[in-house]
Every structure is written in C-alpha cells, then in structure tokens.
C-alpha cells in the first residue's frame, strides 16, 4: 500500500504512528518533552531532597549527641568530688539540675563497682527516680568507645541507641535513625528512641594546674607507680531523648517538602515553557507541511533565531518555493500539450469525417453503375440478348458472382458510413428478441439450406423485452447468424440460445461448429477488415460485419464477445440490457 503524503509527513515529523501501542508514543512531542523533563526534574529534586533530609537527620542527631556528650562530660567533672566523697545529696541536686534540660531523660551516677549513687529520670524513665530495679530499666552497657575527648575532659565511653518496645527499653544495633524511623517522623509520629551516653568519672586531677607543689604531690599520691591510666571512680549514664529533635526535624522536613513541591511546580512551569518554545516552530512546520501536501505550496513558515529548527524551517520554505515554481511550470506545459492534442484531435476528426464522406460518396457512386451492370448481366443470362454458349454463360455467371461480392462490400461500407454518421441516433422500441431472431432465421433459411446447415433456435419460457432499435438489432443478429453459417462446415448445425444472467440482462448466444477463433485473434476479429487466419479464402466477406455488429450492440449499451467452444466452433454472445422484468415476452 502506497503511503499518502499526509502519512509520510506525519511519520517524518512525529515519528512512527503505532509501534508500541502506548499513549506515550502516540502523544505529541511537546507532551513527551514535558513528561520527560518533569520526570527528570522530579527524580533529581526528589533525590536531592531525600539526600538533604537524610543529611539533616544525621547532622541533627550528631549535634544532639555531641551536646549530650559534652553535658555528660561536664557532669562527670562536676560530680567527681561528690563521687569521691560519697556525697549522695549533692549528686541528686546535680541530677535535678541536669534533668531541667529538656533533652535529658535520665541521669544515673554510679560508682565503678556499680553502686548506685543517684538515679533520676522523667517521662518513661520516671521509674529510675523511684529506685526500681535499675537493670530492668537501663540496658546493659556495651564496651565500645565512641570518641575521645579533650585532655581535660574524660572520654565518652559509649553512646548507645535505646528504643522503647513493649514498655521495655531495648538496645538497637545501629546508632542512627533507620529509614522506617525517619518515615515515621515524616508522617508525624514520635519514635521512642533514646541515646544512652556513658562517661567515666575520673579521679580528680590536681586542684590547680599551675600549682606544681600540690599537683605533683596529689598525682603521686593517687598513682600507683605501675598503673598506667588514671583511676576511675564512677560512671555517668545520661539518657538523651530525641523527642524534641524529632519535633524540630518534623518542622524542617515539612518546610523541605514545601520547598521541594515549590521547586517542582517551578520546574513544571519551566518545562512547559521550554517545551512550547521548542515545539511551537515544529507545530507550525507540521501545519505548513500538511497544507503543502494538500496542494497549497504558497505556504511559508516564519523563522525565529538561528537554531536547528530555524534552519529546518528555512529548508522547508526553500523546498515549498521550489515545488511551487516546478508545479507552475508543469501546469503551463500540460496546458500547452493539451491544447496541441486538442488541435491534433480536431484535425484527426476532420480527416476521419472526410474519409467517411469520401467512402460513402465512393460507395454510393459505385452502387448505381453496379446495379445497372447487374441488371444487364441478368438480362444477358436470361437470354435477352440471344442464346449463350455454355462457356459464355459460365463467364457471365462468374462476373455476376464478383459483381454481387462487390455490391455486398459496397453495401457494408455504406452501412458502416451510415452507422458512424448516425451512431447516436437509435429509434428505441420494445423488441421481442425471439420474434426478431425468428425473422432472421427465416430470412437466412435459404442460405443455410444451400450449405446443408441446420439452424436450431432454442427459446426459453420467459425472455425479457429489449428496448432497442429493431432495424439495427435485426442487422446485428443477421450478421452473427450469417457469419456462423459461413464459417460452419457443410452439414453442421448453428445453435441459437438465450439466457437471463440477471433480471436486467439478456444474453443471446450464436454457436457454430466451425474451426473456432485463434485465441490470439479474439481481440482483433472485431477490427475493421480483419479476417482470421483460419478463415478460408473461399469464404467471401468484407471483414466489416463483426465490427458493425459490435458497434451496434455497444450503441444499445450491450456487449458482444466471442469464445471458443469445447469440441470445436465459436460462440458469439450478445448481452443486452433488458426492460423491467414485468415486460416479459412469451
């Protein structure tokens, strides 16, 4: 199937129409551009926002833990004398002070041997203040040193993540917020996560750093000479709540989401603007190409800028200009040739008319002397001029035969000229084809009898009436049956039959038992003066009969055709339009 120009243009500009059968493929370039840009921007902004949120969570948590570690270290320093002296009231006052900090959930001060000196908590950790079983509420301490502190401060021994599950604190293996916890924070839930910061309480260093006398003495007094590290007197365990941090994170996350949505909206608007900016010239080009394909080659597209699309537009404009010029030139040439052809046709028609006129005049002029010659010859043969010898009679009879052949040729030529000159004039009347055919059979009965040929006329019960010129149809049937008699061998049969192929058509078949028609000649036997190869030279004929018959059948909007019959012979079929089926000849 040849693609149409419109489909070619559509395929060229918009790509294949249906490959995947999806809406993305069939959607416009602008939509695809917007979709892809939006998708890319959404992914990029989404990833950046996610990375920012993760970093935000990490940084905030790190800051919180750093602050907690600093507080725990300061508490370890502040409590070291009280721990050394076993001053429990002072430690509890210190604990109260520490618990005043929002993020502090609990503070436990114990000796190195595990003796509880002070334990206070709030919220979920209130049980600590009530001196309940400490092991039930405080998870075991891992032995992982998290980071070192400055020289003056004790090291942070561990930072442990604790999560409340089923009213029991459990140690979590990871020390950061998990993805699920972050998602819970984002949706506004509070995650019961705490951080336990353990800091050892070191035995106090010399009171004053500049007091060499006291410092050296106390240091030597406290240090066993083989001992390497400073003695530890106790342990601070500070619980840091992340609830406040989570609330701050929620606020920050909501703001981040708002900013992200804003950025996406801005990115969407930019995408639409950019896609339109890019595709508007292409759409203009598409419309122009469609108009050009419809024949409007005067269409031009305005160019903007000097980008690839503008260059394409320039090429398109140049192409349409060239096509327009070429079309105009072609139209001019076609007009010129048409005019020349019309003139030639008129000349040919005039020549043909003159030829027909000349033929008619010649035939007409020949017929009169021939008729006179025939009359005189008849008189001679009848003995009007005296008795004739047998030889004279024989010569005169041959002359008579040739005169008759010449007279028949002239008659047919005159008929052809008459038909050609009066071809559009038919005197149509309802005609009973069987009756007309019977007349022809009767007229040619003598000719057939001379050649011992039987004419079989097969009629049918209901033959439709034909609206036609009876004289011309009589001529047609006479030609066909006479032709069949001529080309049938002696003693054979010519069959005439009828068939109604449809209520509005009647086929009349004339079949002989001659040699048939050479298949290569079937199309040529209706040409004027053409005689078939198989026709015997003895068979007289002008070669105009079939042509005239065909011409007259076509004047009745019918069709004349010939076929070879199996078993020998030819079958000529005349198909004529029938009148309404109600008018049936019986």
């Amino acid at each position: 199937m040849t693609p149409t120009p419109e489909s070619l243009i559509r395929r060229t500009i918009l790509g294949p129409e249906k490959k995947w059968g999806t809406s993305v493929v069939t959607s416009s370039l602008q939509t695809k551009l917007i979709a892809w840009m939006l998708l890319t921007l959404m992914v990029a902004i989404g990833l950046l926002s996610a990375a920012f949120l993760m970093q935000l969570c990490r940084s905030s948590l790190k800051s919180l833990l750093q602050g907690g570690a600093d507080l725990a270290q300061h508490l370890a320093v502040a409590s070291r004398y009280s721990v050394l002296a076993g001053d429990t009231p002072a430690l509890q006052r210190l604990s109260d002070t520490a618990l005043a900090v929002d993020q502090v959930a609990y503070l436990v001060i114990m000796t190195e041997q595990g003796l509880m000196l002070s334990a206070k908590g709030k919220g979920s950790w209130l049980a600590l203040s009530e001196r309940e079983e400490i092991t039930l509420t405080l998870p075991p301490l891992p032995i992982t040193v998290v980071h070192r502190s400055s020289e003056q401060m004790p090291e942070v021994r561990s930072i442990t993540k604790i999560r409340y599950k089923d009213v029991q604190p459990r140690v979590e293996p990871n020390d950061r917020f998990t993805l699920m916890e972050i998602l819970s924070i984002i949706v506004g839930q509070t995650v019961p996560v705490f951080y336990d910061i353990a800091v050892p309480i070191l035995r106090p260093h010399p009171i004053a750093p500049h007091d060499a006398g006291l410092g050296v003495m106390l240091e030597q007094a406290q240090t066993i000479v083989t001992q390497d590290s400073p003695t530890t007197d106790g342990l601070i365990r500070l619980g840091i709540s992340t609830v406040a941090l989570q609330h701050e994170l929620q606020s920050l996350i909501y703001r981040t989401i708002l900013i992200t949505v804003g950025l996406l909206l801005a990115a969407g608007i930019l995408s639409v603007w950019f896609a339109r900016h890019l595709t508007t010239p292409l759409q203009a080009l598409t419309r122009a190409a469609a108009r050009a394909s419809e024949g409007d080659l005067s269409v031009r597209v305005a160019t903007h800028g000097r980008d690839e699309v503008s260059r394409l537009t320039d090429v398109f404009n140049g192409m349409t200009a060239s096509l327009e010029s070429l079309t105009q030139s072609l139209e001019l040439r076609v007009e010129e040739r048409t005019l020349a052809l019309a003139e030639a046709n008129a000349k040919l028609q005039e020549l043909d008319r003159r030829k027909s006129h000349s033929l008619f005049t010649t035939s007409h002029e020949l017929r009169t002397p021939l008729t006179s010659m025939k009359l005189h010859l008849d008189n001679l043969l009848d003995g009007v001029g005296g008795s004739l010898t047998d030889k004279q009679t024989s010569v005169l009879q041959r002359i008579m035969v040739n005169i008759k052949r010449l007279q028949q040729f002239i008659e047919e030529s005159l008929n052809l000229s008459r038909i050609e000159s009066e071809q559009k004039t038919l005197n149509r009347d309802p005609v009973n084809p069987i009756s007309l055919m019977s007349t022809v059979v009767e007229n040619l009965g003598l000719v057939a009898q001379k050649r011992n040929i039987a004419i079989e006329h097969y009629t049918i019960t209901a033959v439709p009436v034909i609206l036609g010129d009876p004289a011309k149809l009589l001529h047609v049937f006479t030609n066909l049956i006479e032709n069949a008699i001529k080309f049938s061998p002696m003693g054979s049969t010519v069959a005439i039959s009828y068939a109604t192929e449809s209520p509005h058509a009647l086929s009349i078949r004339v079949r002989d038992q001659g040699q048939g028609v050479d298949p290569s000649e079937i199309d040529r036997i209706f040409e004027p003066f053409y005689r078939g190869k198989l026709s015997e030279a003895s068979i007289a004929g002008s070669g105009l009969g079939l042509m005239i018959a065909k011409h007259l059948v076509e004047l009745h909007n019918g069709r004349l055709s010939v076929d070879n019959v199996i078993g020998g012979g030819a079958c000529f079929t005349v198909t004529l339009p029938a009148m309404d089926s109600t008018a049936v000849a019986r």
Partner: protein
Amino acid sequence: MFIFRAIIAALLSLTGLIFPMPATAFDVAILKSSDLTYYNEAVAGATHVLTADATITVYNLHGNVTGGRSIAEKLRAEQPDLVIAVGLKAALAAKLEIFDSPVVVCMVMAPESYGFTAANFYGVSMQPPVEHQLTSLRTSIPHARRVGLLYDERFTGPLLQSAALEAEKLGLHLVPALIATPDDLPTALRTLTPKIDALWLVQDQTVISEASVRFILETTLDAKVPVFSFSTTLVQLGAFGALVVDGTDAGRQAGSIGKRLLRKEPIKGPRFARPEKTELALNLNVASYLGLKPPDQAVRSAGKIFSGPGNLAKREASEALLP
C-alpha cells in the same frame, strides 16, 4: 682551569677560618609524663636553659608508663647526650630503660624515695629545704611557737628529726601528730589544733588528698589556727601562707644540672638537689579572718599575695564570720 679551581678551594678554606662553624649540638630528649600545665612549664624552663647548646626533642608519655618505656627503649638505642625526665612516670620509664645517658629528674616530689640510685641519675626535688620552710613560717607568723605537724611515718618520718632540730634553732616547738591512714586524720587534727599556734602542712601523701584538703582548711579556720603549707592552691583555699616551688624554676634548675652534665662539669652536693628558688605566698584575707597581721618584711618578700574577693574554703560559713 686547574689553577682556577685551586683558587676557589683556597678561598673556601679561608672562609672557614674566618667564620668557624659552631660546635656539634648535643641531643637532648625530654620525657614528659603528661600534658599537665606545670609539666609544660618545667619543660619550658629546661628548654630555655638548654636550647643554646642542644637539639631538644620532647616526648609525651600521656600518663602511660608502658608507652613511656617504649619511648625510653628507643632513646636508649639512639643514646642521646642527656635525658630530662619531667614527672614521676617519665622518671620511672627512664629508670627502667635508660642506663648510659645521664638522666635529670624533675617535678618528682621525693625522687630519692623511688630508688633512682643509678649512677646516671640526677635531679631536683620538689620539696624546699626544711629550714627554709620553717624560717618562712617563723617570718610570716611570728607569734607562733607551737607548730603542729601531721605526718605518716612512711613518708615524713625521715624528715621529722631534722625538722625538729631546725625548729628548735628557730625557737619553735614542733608538735607532731602521727597518722597511719587518711581515716586517722580527722581525730588527729581535732586533737592537735588546741595544742598549737600554727599548723605546718608538709607534702605527706597520707595527710594531703583531695578529700582531706578542704577538711583540714575548714577545721583549722574554725579553730583559728593558721596553716603554713607548700601550695598556692591551699593558700587560695584558706591556708595562711606557703613556701612554693614553681614548675618553670624547677625545670630551669634541672636544665642547669643537665647543662653541667653535658659540659662534663662536676656536680657538687647531693644527686637530687633541693629547689634553689622558692617563693612565699600569703593570703591576707585569711590573715584578716584569723586576726593576724603578717609582718611587713614578710609581705614585702612574698611573691604571691592573695587578698580581696577570692576563693576561701567554707565560703558560706566564712562570709557570715567575716566582719
């Protein structure tokens, strides 16, 4: 060409004669026990004295004797010309590993009691001479005749006899109170204070501790007994006065000993010298609180005087008692 090269070589040799190169610098290693301020001051003092003659490398033990031994072992292989050990841990590491290079110990309270008997060990004690301490006490608190002394036989026993002799020379009567453990201190002090005009606090490890300092000062202030000690911190906290040794001075003295060792000069006197430079510290607030007035001579000679608003032990109580 050869002549030209010979001229250049001659000129270079002349330059060497005119500007002689300095003698080869000594390699000095300073082992520092930890990064405490007074140790740093001592290192600075020693460095100040030695820096002109030696290339000094400071090693920090970070309070770790085992690590210090590794450093000292490395130093033994390198054989520096001199090792200065600042603090007890550095001195112990040097004692265990360094046998050839001379070692000068400083910032150790009583170095002779830690068995630094090797021939290559020298040092500076942190304890001023007893006579200096008692003289300063006599000068600062002239009215005091009975001077109490809390001591543990293990740490202060050897000092007691000479101290008694020196006290007698100065017209003082030493009233010793023996304790065996820190738990004996409260009873001993409460028993002692009524019998004395002043309390002389010496660097006894059983007597002086973080927990006991405030107790001693509060008790003596309550009993209106002036305390003469060895520490500016104690003076700040409530002691009347003290004869103190500065870290920088101790370092300088150790540096001077080391310098003599580097120059192969003979070391006169004991291997562990007493501090050459001491300083008198007075707390005029405490004097005022006790109703005492230090002599002008003492005030003039004092290097550190604490007066005006400042730290005072048992502040709540003392504020109420102050006029």
